[in-house]
């Protein structure tokens, strides 16, 4: 099956800093989503981005499907951004999402 790797696995930032999270996948995809898992365990939809670039406030994401990666940018980080960020992909031939390994982000004052 498809492999989805995220980097870095852990990241500590000072409040106000910017960061880039990466998601690499091993096969072509027809759907890619980014999620934020908050400290209470909830999965919050950030982006549905099979290709191209999207922005939502301080967050933006870019997927380059032909090169099999996606990037999530967080600017001016806040403590509420802490948690785990997952990318998840959907490939042809099924309808499940395969989740990546996650990036654990901690934003400190």
């Amino acid at each position, binding site marked *: 099956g498809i492999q989805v790797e995220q980097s870095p696995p852990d990241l500590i930032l000072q409040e106000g800093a910017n960061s880039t999270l990466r998601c690499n996948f091993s096969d072509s995809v*027809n759907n890619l*989503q980014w999620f934020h898992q908050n400290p209470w*365990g*909830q*999965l919050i*939809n950030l982006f549905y981005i099979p290709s191209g670039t999207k922005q939502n406030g301080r967050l933006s994401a870019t997927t380059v499907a032909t090169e099999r990666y996606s990037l999530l940018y967080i600017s001016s980080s806040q403590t509420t951004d802490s948690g785990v960020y997952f990318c998840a992909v959907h490939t042809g031939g099924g*309808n*499940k999402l395969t*989740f990546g390994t996650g990036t654990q982000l901690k934003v400190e004052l």
Partner: protein
Amino acid sequence: EPEVTQTPSHQVTQMGQEVILRCVPISNHLYFYWYRQILGQKVEFLVSFYNNEISEKSEIFDDQFSVERPDGSNFTLKIRSTKLEDSAMYFCASSSDSVTEAFFGQGTRLTVV
């Protein structure tokens, strides 16, 4: 904004007991899913459901598990004879079709003791 709702938020059960986790998907969605996340690990697919039948399932989804859409709004996951290793967060999700954005519920944290 429409959302997927799950009940209960937490459940503690004795090993060997049966549990039913409940979900109300977004009303106009046609595809329903269950995923689980063991503490500290990534989210894993269990099963997808479309047109009143299972459309795909993982190796994890063995005879211990079953899903049902008992009426027009609910979607349930039944775990029979629970084991300690079934302790996890279980997420329900729904989507309007098989490749569009999936929306997740807040999860049910199952603890088997």
